[in-house]
């Protein structure tokens, strides 16, 4: 039992301040037009933008036009939630264009879902696509519409499985192409792929395999930069594949590997910067040396040549 007023605690000042702020904000919120709110949502990471749908009914579908979607679901533990989330978001997203679409996920038995999601992005005129898929438990194929996407400027594909190419391939606007762990299996279609890149400037082939392919010619007229990294574990047949690279506009060449395949660069008068990182393979000395020679013959105008010490050993061998 205490007296009123004599021993009372003073009112906490923060509470009043907070109410003040809230009052002002309510006033301000009505002043912010919807376009501003949508713009702010487009600046947020995907998770945060979509969480706003729970704020209140006005915000329920405000996020549906965000241009960049980033789905990173490579934690196996929360996979079910992740898959539900992506499905839900793509279902509700409106038909406005998507600028960048990132999808990292363990596919398992959901090959058709993953393919459908990529297809949804392509349908909305995506420009930059970054796909990392792994853990396939059934055969997987990318949607055919991807290979004729007119709006695509950047494609990054990491998929440790066979790349099933459709009969029609036309990347009219593709400037950057990166493949990782991909296996090329059809000589005819692979050749079609690497001949249909009219504006490609940057090509990165990392740890890719050429199975049952004897020769492939990469002839992208605007190609400036090519980078090839070979898998240290050879999955190819004995002789490997002969890769002919047209260097009409080529400026930079980078190679890392053990020459399981043969590479030859021709028409390379614009090539100025080349780096060769060769890993030593004692029982394939002759083959490595020969392939090194073949590669070096294309570098007649190179100004800067970087070789690893093992590559120099190979060169020494050649001179004998």
């Amino acid at each position, binding site marked *: *039992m*205490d*007296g*009123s*007023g004599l*021993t*009372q605690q003073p009112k906490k000042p923060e509470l009043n301040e*907070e109410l003040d*702020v*809230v*009052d*002002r*904000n*309510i*006033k*301000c*919120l009505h*002043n*912010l*037009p919807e376009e*501003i709110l949508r*713009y*702010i949502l487009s*600046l*947020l*990471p*995907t*998770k*945060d933008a*979509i*969480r*706003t*749908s*729970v*704020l*209140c*009914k*006005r*915000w329920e579908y405000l996020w549906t036009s965000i241009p960049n979607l980033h789905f990173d*679901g490579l934690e196996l533990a*929360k996979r079910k*939630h*992740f898959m*539900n*989330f992506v499905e*839900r978001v793509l279902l509700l997203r409106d038909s406005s264009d998507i600028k960048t679409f990132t999808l990292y996920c363990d596919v398992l038995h959901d090959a058709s879902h993953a393919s459908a999601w990529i297809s949804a992005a392509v349908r909305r005129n995506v420009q930059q696509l970054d796909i990392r898929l792994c853990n396939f438990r059934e055969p997987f194929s990318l949607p055919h519409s991807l290979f004729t996407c007119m709006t695509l400027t950047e494609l990054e594909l990491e998929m440790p499985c066979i790349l099933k190419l459709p009969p029609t391939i036309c990347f009219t606007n593709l400037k950057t192409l990166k493949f990782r762990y991909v296996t090329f299996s059809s000589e005819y279609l692979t050749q079609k792929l690497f001949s249909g890149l009219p504006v490609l400037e940057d090509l990165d082939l990392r740890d890719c395999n050429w199975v049952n392919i004897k020769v492939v010619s990469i002839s992208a007229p605007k190609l400036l930069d090519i980078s090839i990294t070979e898998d240290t574990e050879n999955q190819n047949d004995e002789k490997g594949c002969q890769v002919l690279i047209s260097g009409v506009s080529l400026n930079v060449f980078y190679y890392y590997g053990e020459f399981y395949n043969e590479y030859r660069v021709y028409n390379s008068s614009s090539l100025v910067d080349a780096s060769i990182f060769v890993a030593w393979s004692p029982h394939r000395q002759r083959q490595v040396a020969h392939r090194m020679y073949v590669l070096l013959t294309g570098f007649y105008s190179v100004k800067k040549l970087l070789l690893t010490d093992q590559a120099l050993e190979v060169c020494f061998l050649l001179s004998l």
Partner: protein
Amino acid sequence: MSNTSENPNPSSSSAKMTLKTSDNELFEVEEAVAMKFCTVKQYFEDEKDSDVAARGSTTVIPLPNVHSAVLTMLISYGKKLPQSNAVADNHEEEETKKKERKKYEQGLLKNLMPGELLDLISAANYLDFKEGLEFFNQALADHIQNKSVEYVRKFFGIKNDYEPHEEEKYREEYAWAFEGIECWLIGELKQFMAKTKTLDIAGTLLGIKPALIVASFSVRGLNSLDSNILKPEMIAPGENILAAWINAIGPTGLDSNT
């Protein structure tokens, strides 16, 4: 910053414009900076057509939706931006200016109240100040990133009009997006728990002299229903007792209760 007089420095080459805010304060601003506010630019160009003589400092451009405090900040931000008509600097000067601007931006954001940020965005939108809008919108996005739904509601002054089961459904469907975001309520709960006290039983004390006296302000007297019963019926020592009740207001509706 409000200055109604003419530019005292005759050798200054840039023309000045006068802007009038909603609270009737006048601001003299260099043309280069004022032109970044596209609304002002538009107004100026319209005026120019109508009267060639009335140029620069003699025209007062009214901004009825912008408060002086907000305009001050927008103008000082505008000044720090690279001027479109400035002489091109060499690389070093550009880098120094960039660093200065970054430092200024960080300082500006550090002392900004959430309400002020919304005011700035609203004003920048009205003035069509593109760089300002971009910068302050980004600041707002950075501020609400990784924050819980409850926090963002409070920040924007949003009233939740979802039914509980509707909200629950959304939270379940988008469960992946909610992972790792600290619930604001948990924060509040933690604060509340810190305020609770525990009572330890000290035991019964005998032979205390003098005996405890009932406080002068405590009620005494006869019970109104039965005059054979004296008040108080039950008594315990102590003042400022922490007690709990279920309803939002106490039983008497007063700030304190006996």
